[in-house]
């Protein structure tokens, strides 16, 4: 426990150092900082003094065996689960998320894609995207107003980048599984979030769909901060810049994919097979 806190501190120091060193402060700005978070489910520590720092524009993959705390981590960041202790900061240290309701966190620019694709089944693809970008308006604006021209444009762009222009008028419930996953990513994109949390984006996808998804995510990184939780190691190898391995609610290793793969601790708990 003490070890991981120390590691966290040194990590945070590194971040500040790097910030002061570089000329362009826009790059390497700390975007999401999970600071010493513990989640205690009646004695079971789903997250155990976990610390994690993700830079702006980074594409980070989080891997780990079942029960390592990956989904709980996402739950804490998005406000679905309350942290027992610790804090989560967005954009440096300016905003603390753990006390805020889910909707507020989403409005601040943290978007989340669930493990199981959840799109609004009885709405069309386009309506799904319209829904995703209407949250800031409030009840009465949405009662009397339609989508603005800027919103329409954004929706058109997203439809193109997720490759669903031809299905815009189809009911989302009728889409193939892989297309639902894309639609859900698209719903995140129209919100123009700062941080995208994506839980198992390629679960149940075929190879060609997987490739397309990898391109989509790589295209987003740089512009947005993307955090992906994924089981499929080939997929992770294909996209990851930096990988964090979780185990029993703690960070086991962090670094480039090939480094992490050589780490004996990681091999023992996860990659051994």
């Amino acid at each position, binding site marked *: 426990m003490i070890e991981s806190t120390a590691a966290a501190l040194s990590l945070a120091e590194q971040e500040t150092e790097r910030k002061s060193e570089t000329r362009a402060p826009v790059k390497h700005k700390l975007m999401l900082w999970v600071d010493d978070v513990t989640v205690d489910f009646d004695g079971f520590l789903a997250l155990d003094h976990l610390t994690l720092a993700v830079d702006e524009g980074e594409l980070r993959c989080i891997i780990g065996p079942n029960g390592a705390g990956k989904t709980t981590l996402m739950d804490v960041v998005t406000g679905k689960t309350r942290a027992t202790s610790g804090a989560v900061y967005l954009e440096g240290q300016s905003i603390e998320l753990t006390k805020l309701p889910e*909707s507020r966190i989403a409005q601040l620019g943290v978007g989340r894609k*669930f493990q199981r694709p959840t799109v*609004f089944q009885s*709405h069309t693809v386009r309506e799904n995207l319209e829904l995703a970008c*209407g*949250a800031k308006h409030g*009840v*009465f604006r*949405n009662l009397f107003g339609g989508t603005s021209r800027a919103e329409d444009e954004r929706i058109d762009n997203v439809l193109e980048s997720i490759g669903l222009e031809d299905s815009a008028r189809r009911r989302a419930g009728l889409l193939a599984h892989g297309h639902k996953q894309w639609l859900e990513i698209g719903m995140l994109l129209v919100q123009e979030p700062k941080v995208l949390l994506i839980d198992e984006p390629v679960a149940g996808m075929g190879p060609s769909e997987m490739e397309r998804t990898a391109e989509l995510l790589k295209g987003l990184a740089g512009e947005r901060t993307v955090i992906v939780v994924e089981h499929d190691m080939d997929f992770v190898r294909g996209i990851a810049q930096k990988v964090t391995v979780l185990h029993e609610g703690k960070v086991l290793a962090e670094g480039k994919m090939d480094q992490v793969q050589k780490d004996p601790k990681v091999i023992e708990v996860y990659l051994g097979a």
Partner: protein
Amino acid sequence: MTAFARAARRLSSMHSPRAWIAICAVLAAAALVVPLSNAFAPAGSTLHFPDYLVPILGKFMCFAMVALALDLVWGYAGILSLGHGLFFALGGYAMGMYLMRSIRGEGVYRSDLPDFMVFLDWKALPWYWHGFQVFWFAVAMAIVVPGVVAFFFGYFAFRSRVRGVYLSIVTQALTFAAMLLFFQNATGFGGNNGLTDYKRILGYSLHEPSMRLTLYVVSVLVLFVMYVGCRFIVTSRMGRVVTAIRDAELKVRFCGYETNHYKLFVWTLSAMLCGIAGALYVPQVGIINPSEMQPSNSIEMAIWVALGGRGSLFGGILGAWVINGAKSWLTVALPSAWLYVLGALFVAMTLFAPDGLIGIGTALRARFGRRQP
């Protein structure tokens, strides 16, 4: 001009032209054909619409408003209320209070106070009865009181994330508690006898056939306006948010919506619509008493919507008409069989047409249509 064009475009986006024609046909039949045949066709001819049916049909219009309101929260927002009878009754009581005040000394005891107060030996009007001698005040209260009750109930229930069947049970308890309260003489609403023996409304006698016809036509028109209003809501961007909440509330919250605001809006609006329905119901049936708040009444309202087809506003209205029509007919023709018929109808619909009466057409086409290419 532009405002007019925009309104026209919005109206046409709410329904297909064919659906608008069908709706206008129903409206014309209800608001023109029935009154004309009742007023002008000679009594006894087959074209004459009998007097005794007018208030019954008016009652059906009020029930249809309730079904519409309930469909809005259940069919679209996914909140099953088993307590809408309470909001209906509150609206009814507000109108009943006005009608009691307008008796003005023509009651059995020739007193300025309503008869039941004289009977209880009360000397003065309770404070909350003041103002109800004014018609528009009573109408406003028929909308505001159910709205306020629903708002506070909904605020706390939604904030505590009470959902699904738990919420239904709490609404049921709410109407039951209110019923017990209104049964008390001391509450000041006439105890278990309620408010009755009305004489006139806005100075006109309530027993004249022309007044009954007027109340009926007003009910039809109010129902139409409510329908268009509800349709406006469900086809708006906000309506799509509400249906999305029904289908996946958590996801909507993660999109950044404050889902409680949306739920609270439709919930409160629905209660207010029920209040209006109650206010139109009372002068047509001539009585309001706490039995309107019985849990079974509220459950029956949910059955109208379920049988008619929830999630389609006209389905709810259709369900209210068909079930109440069958009830009026069967309770006279075969009084002992009515409940069995209702039960059998409910089982049959659940088995063969889960989308309700409104979905029968599509269900039949799916089953029998297009056998041969």
